[in-house]
């Protein structure tokens, strides 16, 4: 689905969500209140300015105090890769955006990610992965790194990686693999209105971060939950 189609499905009565320079911001009527929307569209890379613009919208929402849900719609490139962005502290700007979303969550705003295209690396962590629950639409294509680049770094033949990717979700790009890892909670049905599907996700927001449990259940991260629990249990026991 395109962003326009998503917004039309979410807000059949119309909305005030706009896109400028690949950055999405606005709101629309939702469940008797409103749904705020931020995001990245058109496979745009996320740099220092974009991260701060989006974080500013999130902090404005927190200041408004209405606890309205925040949808983070993402079809992005990776972080913007440039000398200038790193010189200006891209790590702080992306972390700031993630912290703003985590603060909003703590202050009672349900935060829902909606992955409808690509996303990768630092941009993915600062946006979709900083929400309480992350949904995706079929065709979404999250990745950490594409397979040809993985082949370059790991010095393994691309053909071998493509073969391994079929049985090993832990390293390969793609929605199915991120679903198996537990990073993506659910895949929505584009044939049905999105509003009720988002509403249903918000109704059952997980109380704790359950991504490692999902990864264990789905087989994409077989040991993370047990390892985290073992460390926490042992250290609590002193």
């Amino acid at each position, binding site marked *: 689905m395109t962003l326009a189609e998503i917004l039309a499905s979410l807000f059949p009565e119309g909305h005030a969500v706009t896109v400028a320079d690949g950055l999405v911001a606005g709101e629309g009527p939702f469940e008797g209140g409103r749904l705020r929307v931020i995001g990245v569209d058109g496979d745009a890379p996320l740099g220092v300015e974009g991260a701060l613009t989006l974080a500013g919208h999130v902090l404005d929402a927190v200041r408004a105090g209405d606890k309205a849900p925040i949808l983070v719609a993402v079809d992005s490139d990776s972080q913007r890769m440039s000398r200038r962005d790193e*010189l200006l502290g891209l*790590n702080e700007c992306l972390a700031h955006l993630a912290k703003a979303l985590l*603060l909003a969550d703590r202050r009672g705003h349900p935060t829902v990610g909606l992955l409808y295209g690509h996303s990768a690396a630092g941009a*993915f962590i600062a946006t979709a992965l900083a929400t309480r629950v992350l949904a995706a639409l079929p065709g979404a294509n999250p990745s950490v790194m594409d397979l040809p680049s993985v082949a370059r770094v790991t010095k393994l033949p691309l053909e071998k990686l493509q073969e391994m990717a079929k049985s090993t979700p832990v390293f390969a790009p793609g929605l199915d693999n991120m679903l198996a*890892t537990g990073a993506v909670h659910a895949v929505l049905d584009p044939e049905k209105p999105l509003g009720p599907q988002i509403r249903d996700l918000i109704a059952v927001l997980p109380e704790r971060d359950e991504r490692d449990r999902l990864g264990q259940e789905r087989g*994409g991260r077989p040991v993370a939950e047990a390892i*985290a629990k073992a460390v926490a249990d042992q*250290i609590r026991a002193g």
Partner: protein
Amino acid sequence: MAGPDRDRLSWYEASARQRLDALLDPGSFTEVLGPAERRMSPHLPLFDLPRAFDDGIVVGSGSLDGKTMFVAAQEGRFMGGAFGEVHGAKLVGLLRAALDVKPAAVLLLLDTGGVRLQEANAGETAIAEAMRAIVAARAAGVPVVGLIGGRAGCFGGGGLIAGTCSRLAVSEGGRISVSGPEVIETNKGAEEFDSKDRALVWRTMGGKHRRLIGGADAFCADTVSAFREAALRLIADAPAFDLDTLTAEQARLRARIDRFGQCRDATDIWAKLGVNDPDAVPAMDTGAFDETVAQAREAVHDAR
């Protein structure tokens, strides 16, 4: 390890375990899920790669000046300290326990190239889980302090974790960025970033630049004792995690981009910061550099 050894031990050269042993009060460190338990990566054998018994991270508890600390130290010499499934889960478990136990602080000895590509999805997701857990610990009043000065630097998702900490101490060798020099060069060409130009790497991502622009809160000489002193100071002075702090951070980062967004090189930024001789910064010793930092008002803030 007693004081004099702590004074001599190079943070950059030391292993993760050596750093922890020398950083904490002597004999106080207790590791959990240590190498004897052999909790190794289930994935690396698929790539015919050797494994480490601790998956490249040491986690546990100890004391610093008698106060209880939770600690995690990445081993930059194993796969560049990168986040794999077990590695990341050990950090996440430690941070989650901090929320209940409420130690005096959590110290993160970051030394990482970012996500381990052979386990990329697990590493990326673990970084997101760690950031959520750091925020929860900070909001509960537990300072999370990052100490960065290792061989692998602090890149990729490690840079985002650093930006989530309450405070950061960094040494000259502690590079912090999201895209590493090689990644930028590979994707955008050597005209954008020549990764072989080591001076450019240090100027753009190194500890002195981060300290001068307020990307880190303390600059340390390359010894364990310097990091220990910085950690004690920063724990006592950690900002809260709340709307005021993030509002201040928004203004701080916005002002930085407005003021320095046109600068081509770190030396241009340093000149605008009021540094008398920007070209002299890379060669300055810690004392001279501290005096220089004192001229830069951007360097001191509670906006993180």
